[in-house]
């Protein structure tokens, strides 16, 4: 074997790491546990990120107030990625290499998740992604507490096709979430003998939907489904209502409400939009009321609490539960605990990790926007992430490291 510079460096790195390990262990005995997060606390995506940052703070304070973990307090190291993908890579490196955190909860868009996931895998830092997404990530180092299309998209398609008919027009954001979700939508629609009139993709800064609205009318679908994302895309719902189309063709969405869009639109504009997801502030359980009261006390305003803030809160508590059960912060032991089938009761109900996929079975609510609230129509308990489970089995292939896509 020729000894290349890379081998030499890798060897030296390992040696250095090995030398530093015992030291770190001793220091770590009394020091705080470090929980890292990388989230967009400013910029175009901060309607998603800000409440997640608050949820992180709240969850960590919760755990610390109850005495911490393993007798130690948790310190949250939160970086603001400013809706800039380049900063994700940078801060992920910083968390893994410099801050040497024990766990990371972060990433919002799927693009940001893919920008940082491998960094944490290489550095052996356990990573939680707590956002609804397009499904399929199969990576033993990564735990997902958000919903996937099989959980939140299929119920929408099923309900809407029964109620409104079988010709559908799809609008989606132009990055991996939107593209893959559009594929799933098409898959579920065609599975039920429906047809897709057309699929249009929009970059995140498009704010003029005049021609699109005319084209939708030209195609004359029974209903329209939107997987649009972010502040600029809000303009679609606005212009849709302004043209009076909201009275003519019903609208469903896989993302509406996640960025609190229902609060920005007037009741007349938002009413009737069909969505499905893991969380609504209207969930009548004591766990949810308790959570909202805590939020109110800490931050004042609960209006901005949305699904992925709750997912982030779930993720952190789930990790804490793992640490308690395992009695250690060692990654290998924690992964074993995760794969023993761990669950917590959160504001949005039971969150149970499936050992095979590291994704969560969740309660799914079918909801309708009514008077700026997400009114629950129907609830399915513990819906599994069956899309990802179709391809991914981490118990059998623990070294798998890819994102599966639906094949149509």
């Amino acid at each position, binding site marked *: 074997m020729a000894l290349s510079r890379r081998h030499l460096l890798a060897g030296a790195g390992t040696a250095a790491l090995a030398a530093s390990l015992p030291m770190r262990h001793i220091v770590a005995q009394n020091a705080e546990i470090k929980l890292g997060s990388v989230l967009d606390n400013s910029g175009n995506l901060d309607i998603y990120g800000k409440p997640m940052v608050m949820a992180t703070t709240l969850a960590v304070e919760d755990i610390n107030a109850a005495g911490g973990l393993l007798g130690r307090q948790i310190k949250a190291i939160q970086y603001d990625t400013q809706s800039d993908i380049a900063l994700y890579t940078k801060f992920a490196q910083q968390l893994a290499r410099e801050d040497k955190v024990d766990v990371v909860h972060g990433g919002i868009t799927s693009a940001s998740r893919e920008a940082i996931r491998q960094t944490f895998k290489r550095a052996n830092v356990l990573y939680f992604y707590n956002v609804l997404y397009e499904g399929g990530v199969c990576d033993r180092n990564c735990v997902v507490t958000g919903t996937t299309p099989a959980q939140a998209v299929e119920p929408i398609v099923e309900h809407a096709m029964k109620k409104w008919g079988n010709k559908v027009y799809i609008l989606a954001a132009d990055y991996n979430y939107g593209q893959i979700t559009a594929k799933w939508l098409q898959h579920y629609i065609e599975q039920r003998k429906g047809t897709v009139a057309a699929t249009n993709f929009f970059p995140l800064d498009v704010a003029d939907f005049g021609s699109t609205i005319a084209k939708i009318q030209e195609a004359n679908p029974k209903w329209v489904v939107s997987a649009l994302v972010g502040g600029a895309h809000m303009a679609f719902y606005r*212009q849709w209502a302004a*043209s009076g189309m909201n009275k003519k063709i019903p609208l469903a969405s896989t993302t509406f409400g996640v960025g609190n869009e229902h609060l*920005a639109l007037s009741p007349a504009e938002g009413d009737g939009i069909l969505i499905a997801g893991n969380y609504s502030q209207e969930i009548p359980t004591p766990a949810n009321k308790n959570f909202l009261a805590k939020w109110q006390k800490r931050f004042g305003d609960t209006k901005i609490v949305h699904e992925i803030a709750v997912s982030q809160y779930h993720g952190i508590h789930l990790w804490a539960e793992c640490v308690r059960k395992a009695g250690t912060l060692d990654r290998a032991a924690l992964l074993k605990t995760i794969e023993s089938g761990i669950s917590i009761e959160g504001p949005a109900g039971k969150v149970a990790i499936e050992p095979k996929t590291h994704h969560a079975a969740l309660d799914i609510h079918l909801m309708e926007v009514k008077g700026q609230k997400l009114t629950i129509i129907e609830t399915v308990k513990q819906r599994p992430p069956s899309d990802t489970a179709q391809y991914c089995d981490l118990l059998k292939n623990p070294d798998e490291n890819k994102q599966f896509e639906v094949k149509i």
Partner: protein
Amino acid sequence: MDYAAVVVLEIIYMIAFLALISAGLAIVFGMMRVINLAHGEFVMLGGYATIACSKAGINIYFAMLVVAPIVVGVIGLVVERLIVRFLYGRMIDTMLATWGLSLLLIGLVELVFGNTAVSVPAPIPGYQVGSYQMGGYNLFIIGITVVLVLAMWLVLRYTRIGLIARGAMQSAEVVSSLGYNPNTVYMLTFTTGAALSGLAGGVLAPLTGLLPSVGGIYIAKAFITVITGGAAVIAGTLTTSALFGTVNQIVSFASTPVIGELAMLVLAIILLRLMPQGVTGRFFRNST
């Protein structure tokens, strides 16, 4: 047939939209050669002024047509006195200063209004073209733009104020020889430009969700419209708005809005390559 009418209406709307967001910039850049990178933020402030007033119970038309231009005009006046007036003739420095200003304004609005999208519903209901539903508010925007452009043209062409402003555009000495202080003229021109941007922001507020960073949507389009338009403020802006609006919408209908925007940018590059002085550097040379 109905569909053709819909396409034509959308084209006219896009032309009006471009002319509206460019008017303020056309005055500030076209007449004073000041590159105001905070133009998008002036538009954004107009939107916030409108929404804040409307939430406070003030009539929405009054808010967008009167309050928004006055608020942003005053902000423009302050900016001119504190920053821009020291930088006349120093194009790069002005760019840097106004860019900083744009970041500052975004930050301030974030502090005051928060970073979630806010908006008001459009006050005009949709209407029917054959079997198609159209946004009625778009017609209002078209109307406002026509009135605005007409008023600008009349003022610049037929009033003494317009004459002085055009004189200032030629050179400061012309104004001085007419017996006016060029500094005052510049100040008023900048304020007017800001007020027009505020008006645009106010009128457009009901169409999109408003975020502090929304200026970014407007600034690129406004700049390519004004720069490609060239020296004649009104004729230039109108010509390029018409060209870009038509191309953008036709391509959008034929493919997607993304390709539509691309087509518009490609057209701008071609036009500037062929006519580095802008469209009015070659055609309509003697117009306003």
